[in-house]
């Protein structure tokens, strides 16, 4: 694959970086990234990955754009209200960078479709808004042996971690199971500072590009927590848990399954 003059100009600020260069930019152009959720985290991640020239971006989401989404889901515009999120996202991505192939998966990620879907990509970026899907992303990436960049936001806080299956701590190494229903609030119930989606989603995109390029040190075996009130990051070291039900020494999870959907009855 050779770049056109236009592409060389478009990606010149990448190509200038010794760690990227033409070779790295080609890796980006050949990469295939699946974004789970075209929402708060998925929006900025998709836009920056598209701008970066990622060859194929898959987006899975079954929702339509709601007015309450627009405070943070920056890939969707006011005129997209009630339109399919994956379609809205595809249009913005292709307007930004026609080099990108966008694969629309207008669906929910489930234990039935997850493995087949994820196997078609190099890595997965988790922008899901609920625990069942987050645990499913973790499990499916483990079974498909694909790196996962996890992200989450709530109120004034966000969290990112990168998971290399079998090599670094997985989500279940830290959180074995979803919290009991109703105990932990979701964005819908608790609110979220919209700009947090940009901060956490773009860190996820950074991690994804680093993995594609093989540059630097991935955010593995570390949870990066951000508190917008104090504008402070905190890194919590983690490691593979021998008692992990998925990737531990005596796994009890040997195939994909769906956790029960959350009920909306948050405490605080």
């Amino acid at each position, binding site marked *: 694959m050779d770049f056109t003059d236009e592409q060389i100009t478009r990606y010149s600020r990448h190509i200038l970086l010794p760690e990227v260069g033409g070779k790295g930019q080609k890796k980006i152009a050949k990469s295939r990234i699946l974004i789970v959720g075209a929402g708060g985290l998925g929006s900025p991640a998709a836009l920056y990955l598209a701008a970066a020239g990622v060859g194929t971006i898959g987006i899975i989401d079954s929702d339509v754009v709601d007015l309450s989404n627009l405070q943070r889901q920056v890939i969707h515009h006011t005129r997209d209200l009630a339109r399919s999120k994956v379609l809205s996202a595809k249009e913005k991505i292709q307007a930004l960078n026609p080099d990108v192939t966008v694969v629309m998966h207008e669906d929910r990620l489930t234990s039935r479709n997850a493995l087949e879907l994820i196997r078609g990509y190099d890595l997965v970026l*988790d922008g899901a808004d609920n625990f069942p899907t987050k645990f499913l992303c973790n499990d499916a990436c483990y079974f498909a042996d694909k790196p996962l960049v996890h992200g989450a936001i709530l109120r004034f806080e966000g969290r990112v971690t990168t998971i290399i299956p079998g090599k670094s701590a997985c989500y279940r*190494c*830290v959180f074995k199971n979803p919290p009991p229903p109703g105990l932990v609030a979701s964005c819908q119930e608790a609110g979220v500072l919209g700009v947090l989606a940009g901060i956490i989603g773009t860190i996820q995109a950074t991690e994804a590009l680093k993995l594609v390029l093989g540059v630097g040190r991935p955010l593995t075996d570390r949870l990066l927590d951000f508190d917008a009130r104090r504008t402070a990051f905190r890194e919590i070291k983690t490691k593979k848990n021998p008692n992990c039900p998925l990737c531990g020494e005596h796994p009890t999870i040997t195939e994909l399954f769906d956790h029960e959907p959350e009920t909306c009855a948050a405490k605080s």
Partner: protein
Amino acid sequence: MLVKINGKSEEVQGATVLDLLKARNIDPHMVAVELNARMLEGDHLATTPVKEGDQLEFLFYMGGGR
């Protein structure tokens, strides 16, 4: 005794990890607990003693994304 909780030094009283959670009104189902860089099993919270100089992380679930 002096321990570190989520990176901050704190003077605490209590014999077990569960005592520390209870003293902070934290429902043990809402957190994953790391003690000296090792994840604690949920059913060990009540039987794991806290010792001077221990480093604890109370990791709250965070599930949003949309």
